């Protein structure tokens, strides 16, 4: 055995000449050099800040903020809130507009992408014009357009537009009834949970049944009944019993504006509209490319098996197209999230507006604030990519 080893191994050279060892050595040196550079930059920065008598460190996050913010998803006030709280308020505002934006832009983008491939000339061309106009005008311009158009078109609070069902619209935003939870709300929540579990179980059963017998079940209708019908029925029943689980606080006229109820700020609406319509144009193109990438033979084969066009799209084309669509779709989601920082131009209190705008200025701690902000966007992007990659793997072709 031993002779065999010594025969096959190359003639002994100094390990200094081993390319693998050398490679590792150079990489270690490079990493050390980079760490050293960052260390130098950091210590130098701290030294310079101290010499210039500029405050440094992260202690400011615990100091009282002293300013107010228009949209706060957590309790925040100038009196009690710290700069750290203001950071969270801004972060949540960014996340909320991004999440809602991603939801709507996906929907709109798919709709328009599919419309572009429509055999109907009018539909296809309207979709094309949409895409060309929206993706070729800078987003900032579109945001300002939405904001000024939305603001300009809306009436002053004293002449609020009444839209029925407790909805009002004026230049201060959209007002609606605020739900107040009654004592029996838990019954409703429980019924809803039962509905969700029931739907999931039924879906599993339906799938198994189809695989065994080929018979299809009305999953959609059953889900609707379980998820909507059952809770609504319960609600009505509870209300009749005199223990209404949900009551509504309606907006009322105040001195300046409507008070009470819930208010959606025009800044939020404008930002959401701008982000959704702009990103949808790009998603539409991605969807179109994805669908075109599925070979025509697939559609024809589906047709010859007797699937209807809608079914062909849903069961054959889209699942295959998704493999092409998901990676670029992910970058559009990331774009939307990062573009939400254009909120600064229209006064929506997102992370950049609140933190890099007001907090940076009131504390003067530019380096810390910028570093934190960059870290946040990096994290949001990485997390989004992570989940989209998981989804991508699930959608990938399963080789049999």
């Amino acid at each position, binding site marked *: 055995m031993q002779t065999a080893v010594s025969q096959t191994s190359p003639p002994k050279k100094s390990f200094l000449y081993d390319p693998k060892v050398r490679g590792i050595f150079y990489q270690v040196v490079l990493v050390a050099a980079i760490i050293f550079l960052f260390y130098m930059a950091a210590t130098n920065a701290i030294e310079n800040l101290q010499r210039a008598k500029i405050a440094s460190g992260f202690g400011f996050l615990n100091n009282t903020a002293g300013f107010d913010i228009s949209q706060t998803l957590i309790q925040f006030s100038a009196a009690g809130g710290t700069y750290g709280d203001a950071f969270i308020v801004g972060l949540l505002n960014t996340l909320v507009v991004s999440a809602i934006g991603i939801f709507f832009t996906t929907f709109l983008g798919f709709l328009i992408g599919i419309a572009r491939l429509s055999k109907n000339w009018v539909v296809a061309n309207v979709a094309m014009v949409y895409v060309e106009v929206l993706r070729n005008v800078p987003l900032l311009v579109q945001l300002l357009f939405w904001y000024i158009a939305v603001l300009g078109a809306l009436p002053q609070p004293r002449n609020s537009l009444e839209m029925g069902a407790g909805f009002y619209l004026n230049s201060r935003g959209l007002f609606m009834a605020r739900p107040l939870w009654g004592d029996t709300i838990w019954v409703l929540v429980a019924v809803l949970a039962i509905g969700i579990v029931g739907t999931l179980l039924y879906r599993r059963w339906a799938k198994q049944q189809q695989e065994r017998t080929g018979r299809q079940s009305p999953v959609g209708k059953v889900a609707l009944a379980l998820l909507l019908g059952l809770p609504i029925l319960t609600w009505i029943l509870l209300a009749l019993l005199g223990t209404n689980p949900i009551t509504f606080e309606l907006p009322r006229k105040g001195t*300046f504006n409507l008070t009470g109820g819930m208010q959606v700020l025009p800044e939020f609406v404008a930002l959401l509209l701008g982000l959704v319509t702009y990103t949808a144009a790009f998603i539409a193109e991605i969807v179109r490319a994805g669908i075109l990438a599925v070979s025509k033979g697939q559609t024809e084969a589906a047709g010859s098996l007797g699937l209807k066009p809608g079914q062909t799209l849903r069961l054959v084309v889209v699942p295959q197209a998704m493999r092409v669509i998901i990676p670029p779709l992910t970058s559009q989601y990331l774009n939307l999230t990062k573009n939400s920082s254009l909120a600064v131009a229209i*006064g929506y209190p997102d992370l950049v507006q609140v933190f890099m705008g007001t907090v940076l200025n009131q504390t*003067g701690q530019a380096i810390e604030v910028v570093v934190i902000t960059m870290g946040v966007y990096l994290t949001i992007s990485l997390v989004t990519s992570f989940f989209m990659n998981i989804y991508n793997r699930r959608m990938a072709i399963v080789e049999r």
Partner: protein
Amino acid sequence: MKKALVSIAFGLTASLFATGASAQATLNSVKQKGFLTCGSNTGLAGFGQPDAQGNWTGLDVDLCRAIAAAIFDDPTKVRFIPLAAKDRFTALQSGEVDVLSRNSTATMSRDTQLGLDFPVINYFDGQGFMVRKKLGVSSAKELNGASICTQQGTTTELNLADYFRANNMKYEVVAFATSDETFKAYDAGRCDAFTTDASGLYAERLRASAPDDHIVLPEIISKEPLGPAVRHGDNNWGDIVRWVHNAMLNAEELGVTKANVEQMKTSTNPEIKRLLGTEGKFGEAIGLTNDWAVRVIKHVGNYGESFEKNVGEGSRLKIKRGQNALWTKGGLQYGIPVR
């Protein structure tokens, strides 16, 4: 936005890699460059604003011109860098501007935590509110429940929170990054009230689509001592800024004007002689020539002249001297003696 990013990036790199400034560094670098860089407002009538030809005018602008005149005997050797409220201090810290003369309130945190100094106060002000007349509001105390437009990165947004808290009133704040956006939003009806320094209110009202539809409410809710800022640590540079302003005040008090300054050189009044450098070596003590004050007054005028021309009777703003009158006339402007 781009401006903000540029100045922040500039500030970051500067503070990462720059080494400290030595004494007299700013004056020397200004002399070497051949001009002064002055952080100014992006456009505030009467205080700092470029006209259609790009000539800057205003009370704050005049102070920079006066500093340039004292150094170069030429008030045009200034490069104005317009800065929005939230970019201004970073620009000064990073060395992008030599002096910030842009209706900035001197406060303790700015003085001690931002690494700045406020050598003088060139305009005593306070914060006020503007509303549309048809709202029927006549006092700030009636603003409970109002929505209010204001600008980020200002003392204004802090005072606003204080005032409503102290008076137990509710409000909705809408904060914007630039004065342009803030005022446009108010003008478009987004807010019931617009708030900033009283001086700014009068200046901004001129921009409204119908200025007469708006009134300024009587309450002044804060102290806003506005003045130029310099970097902490270069005391000589701070001295120059301080004495240029004081020379303008003393000139007004002693009756030395743009028109008569050359004749005044022959005056026998010892105070005038020291001011104009015909006696003593006061200019040399701050690294300038002894006729430094003559240069300032010859090119820019005394404080009263600059005030009247830019914001007073000679301007569209028609602001009364009020607290900014000389101390001899019941105001707060008090020139410390040259001696």
